Structure formats: C-alpha cells, structure tokens
C-alpha cells in the first residue's frame, strides 16, 4: 500500500482539475460533469482515510455521497433541460438575467 499522502495528493489534483473545469467551460453539462469529478475526488479521500484508520465511517460517508450525488445530478440535468427550453443555449454567460 502506498503512504496516505499519495492518495490525498491524487484526489487534490483531481479536485483542482474539477474546479478548473467549472470555471473555464462554457457548457452547463460539462460544468456539471466537473462537479461530479470533484465529488469523486472527495470520495477517494474518504476511502483512503477509511483504509488508513481502519474505520467504517469513511465508507458509509462515501455511500451517502454517492446517493446525494445521484440525486444532485438528476436535478441538475432536469434544470439544464428546462433552462435550455427557455433560452435555447447552454452557455452560462447567456443566463445573466439576475445580475444587477
């Protein structure tokens, strides 16, 4: 087994890549996919700690993150569909109506 640090660094790198994806992509679906990437990086951290501390709580936490991520992806995609029907575009820059 690798030292714990390696897993933490790996998940931090994936998390950072997810953050970059949310910021620079102008397509709502890819933004949602980057959010899923961030959630998975966090899952990896949980499992790594669960292994190194011998605790079951980490795995239970991942179970719940999985369920919540499923619910969030479903609602996010439904929102994207209804927004697309209104604006005919998936670009976040086109949805600035609420900006002052």
């Amino acid at each position, binding site marked *: 087994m*690798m030292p714990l640090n390696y897993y933490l660094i*790996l998940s931090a*790198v994936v998390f950072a*890549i997810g953050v970059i994806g949310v910021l620079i992509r102008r397509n709502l679906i*890819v933004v949602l996919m980057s959010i899923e990437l961030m959630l998975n990086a966090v899952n990896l951290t949980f499992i790594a700690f669960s292994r190194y501390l*011998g605790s079951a709580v980490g795995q239970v936490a*991942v179970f719940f993150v999985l369920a919540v991520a499923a619910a969030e992806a479903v609602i996010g995609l439904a929102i994207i569909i209804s927004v697309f029907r209104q604006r005919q575009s998936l670009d976040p820059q086109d949805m600035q109506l609420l900006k002052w």
Partner: protein
Amino acid sequence: MDFSTFVFFLLAGLLVTSSLLVVFLRNVVHCALALVSALLIIAILFVTLHAPMLGVLQVMVYAGAIMVLFLFVIMFLNPAVLERAGTLWWSTATVLAVLLGGLLVPLFFNNEVAGDPVASTEFFGSPEMLAKSLFNDFVLPFEIASVLLLVAIVGAVVLAKRERVVR
C-alpha cells in the same frame, strides 16, 4: 518498484489524464466518456483500498446509471461546439490552480501524516461491514437518503416535463 506501487502510479496517471480530458475536450460526448473512464479508474482505486463493495457500487450507480443519464441529456439537447472562454476566466483558473498546488506541496513532504495502514481483515470493506454500519449506526441518514432520492425523482419529473398548453 513492486507491483502495487506500479499499479498505483499507473492508475493515478490514467486518472489525471482522464480528468484533464473531461475538462479540456471540445466534444461533449467525448468529455462524458472520459468521465466514465475516470469513474471506472476511481472504482479500481477503491478496490485496491479494501473497499470492494463501494467500488462495485460506484460502477453500478455512478458509471452505470448517472453517466448514462448524462449521455441521454447530451443526446437530447445536442449542444453545439462551445466558444472559447475569455481571458478573465483563464487567469482566475490559473491562480486557483496555483493556490491549490501551493497547498499540496507541504502535504507531499509532510511524512508525519502517513503511517502504515491499519491491518485489515476480510470483513473490512465487505458488504457485511457496510450493511452493519448502515443499518445499526447510520439508519437515520439512510432513511433520509431514501426520502431524498424520492424527492429528487419527483423534482426531476416535474422540472423536465413539457408544459402542455390546455386549450
């Protein structure tokens, strides 16, 4: 370098490559497939970390159902090729990436956190362990999660339904 180290670095490299492909590819369907491969690699990493139940749940739920839903929506909406992001966003992203990198480097050299993993039994990470934890210690969050999923289903159906104009 022994076998498990080699496997870890191989999987880590593939995972970082897949994540970069998710973020930087032009075609949305290709991005979705790159995310599927990233999820599968993470599931393999779960299995190497003695969490086989969660690894297989990840494949079933995340890679098998959620990403199929993503692909459905992509095919349904058929988005055009995206435009280039402005310079403001690229520089913000670079600054953030550098900040995160600055957090990582001390982590890498901090060897006090690392230790040998606790010796694990066959019970650890198995379905029995997860089931015992879920139904004894965490039964309330479990029930709330099921209600949450029901709410998500209803919400998605309501949001995505086409408005029928009643004449």
